């Protein structure tokens, strides 16, 4: 009995759960088009843990996956072309060297930046607030822009994870859920702050 209550056991349990969650995420992301639903389900499970609804990994993952499937596909349809267009634009502008293209590159770079930090909040906001899609994007953007502290911390987390994943791509097998957990925690503190800082 005592062993199951020890810190060591709890920490180990958490690690195992994170690993399992990551595995599920990879599995559910394999059809590529389901990356968004799968990521949202992962954040949903992380939120359940955070809210101390301890009910394992499998069941809540599937529940969140099914529940948010439609809205996350819609998001994929909006997000992917947008990101694609912006990034290809940047690449093309990189080749050109006129004054307008430098300005354009700057503007588009800014938009990419906004897109990244809004996206960072998109998933936590989605699982925490349960909003219709327009509201979702709007609020993610709003929180991201008004909570600068959390946004900067989040960007640092993203940057560092990006670096590590680039260096050691194999990390993706078990690191995504941990990174997401950090990002969720960070966004949650921003949510808590909204009332206070306003």
């Amino acid at each position, binding site marked *: 009995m005592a062993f199951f209550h020890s810190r060591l056991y709890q920490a180990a349990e958490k690690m195992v759960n994170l690993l399992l969650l990551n595995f599920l995420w990879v599995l559910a992301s394999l059809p590529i088009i389901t990356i968004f639903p799968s990521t949202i389900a992962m954040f949903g499970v992380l939120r359940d843990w955070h809210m*101390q609804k301890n009910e394992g990994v499998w069941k809540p993952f599937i529940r969140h996956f099914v529940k948010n499937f439609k809205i996350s596909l819609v998001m994929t349809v909006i997000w992917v072309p947008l990101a694609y267009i912006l990034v290809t634009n940047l690449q093309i502008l990189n080749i050109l060297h006129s004054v307008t293209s430098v300005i354009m590159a700057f503007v588009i770079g800014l938009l990419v930046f906004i897109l990244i930090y809004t996206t960072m909040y998109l998933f936590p906001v989605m699982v925490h607030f349960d909003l219709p899609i327009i509201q979702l994007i709007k609020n993610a953007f709003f929180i991201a822009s008004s909570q600068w502290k959390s946004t900067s911390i989040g960007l640092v987390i993203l940057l560092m994870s990006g670096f590590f994943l680039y260096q050691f791509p194999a990390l993706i097998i078990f690191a995504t859920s941990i990174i997401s957990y950090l990002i969720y925690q960070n966004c949650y503190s921003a949510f808590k702050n909204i009332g206070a800082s306003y």
Partner: protein
Amino acid sequence: MLKKLSYFGCWMLFLLLFVACSNDDVASEKDEQDSGNDKEISDNFNKEGLPIVDEKVSLHFVSPKAPLAPDYNEMEIIQRLEDKTNVHIEWDNISGDGYEERKNLMFASDELPDAFYHAEFSDYDIVRYGRSGQIIPLEDLIEEHAPNLQKIFEKRPELKSMVTAPDGHIYSLPRAEEMGLVAVPNFTSINTKWLDELGLDMPTTLEEYGDVLRAFRDQDPNNTGEDDVIPLSYMHNFWTGNFGDMFAAFGVPDNTEHRIVRDGEVIFTATQPEYKEAIEYFHGWVEEGLIDDESFIQDVSQYFAKGKTDPPTLGSYIWWETEEIVGPERSDDYELLPPLEGPNGHKIVGRSNNSEYSRGAFAITSANEHPEITMRWVDQIYDPKMSAQMSWGPIGIIYEEDENGMLVNKELEEGVAMGELRQKVAPNGPTVVLEEDFGTVVDMEPRAKQRLKDIQEIYEPYLEEESFPQIFFSEEELDQINRLEVDILEFVNQKQASWLLNGGVEEEWDSYIQQLESMGLHELMQIYQDGLDRFNENL
């Protein structure tokens, strides 16, 4: 071509990001249109009588809901209200654990519904959003359009003064339930069937209670041959079922705010030596496995499930009452544990700071284009009979009317627990049921009658005299409180849990006290003391 592409990219994003702004434009255009339509609206609106409007009007309300409750539009009582008033409410029901942040988000992004129902606004919310104009003053609307609420204010002037903010406006509507039940939120129930089985007496001291819990742990009272008994479970720092009254056995009762009043003095419980002694003692219980360590993390539904395992595994537990946890068929096996005598001879029951009155139950926002319709709608609920049904359940499901038109409880179907059924059929919200309404408009339900009796017989002889009243602080005071209290309470609660689970109170106590002082505990207590002194002077 390339340029075209990049322009297109920009436009996509701009469109996406600025849908937001265009929404507001649409809203203001709508405003203009509506002011043109004013005459039409006033024709539609009936100042007296029902329905409130001749042609159906739709309003958008936000409300938190209980875990088991369906969407409010599916509730029968809400549907009846719609039939009566011809006002349709579009409910945005937010489950309890996300409500607080969602509400803040709505105010911060100025994305407001027409009204917040069962709003649970803190005093700080009320003062701040009142000042910013996001929730509107209601006193004129009440005077013109809320005869039921007016009547209540005449009967209970203190209720009106309670909802009046320091700036003299009423921004939120009250909720009141004068039953005499809230003073004691922590009833400890104990499995008497097991006591009999093991040949034990009902404990009267903390020491004896500990022995009983040990016996539950070791002697397999449920005859499963397994180590599956939970001797004692509770809800850490929850409004009901918390551990505060166990601490009372050491001389100072604790509560969720860690704030009690004795002889007009405000005392912060979590820095008292008695508190430290209690923590040390109960850490022993956690270590021995007498206290369920999930008490610190479980939510209500997990807690409820523990009482309903087959075979029974719960030895004793703390909650609002006995039946809700273990279910009706098992509740006969449990009895209330009377207040226990502590090691130093104290036998005390804490008086909670919970009040039967509250503010912030309903608020109308600046986005609302039909405040008068909204006020008339909500005033329907302040009819005592309607209030009772909103609070406890509608006629036909929970109640039936007797020959005098009084609401009396219907027989429930076998195996249905009242508390759970109620979550599904009663939306709660801005309701007022006064003491004189019990026994004339609504029969006090058996559960409440029983609880009142239990309080009077078991707890009242040992009940603390005073509690901290509902004081509406000024904005500066609230600012201070808000700034200080959140961190202090979080620190205290986290320390409390950590000491109970892992020990270490003896070594860390001095630095803990120092830390609290540097967090501004003294300042915080001074604000509360000043508030209380002011309140007592005005009595």
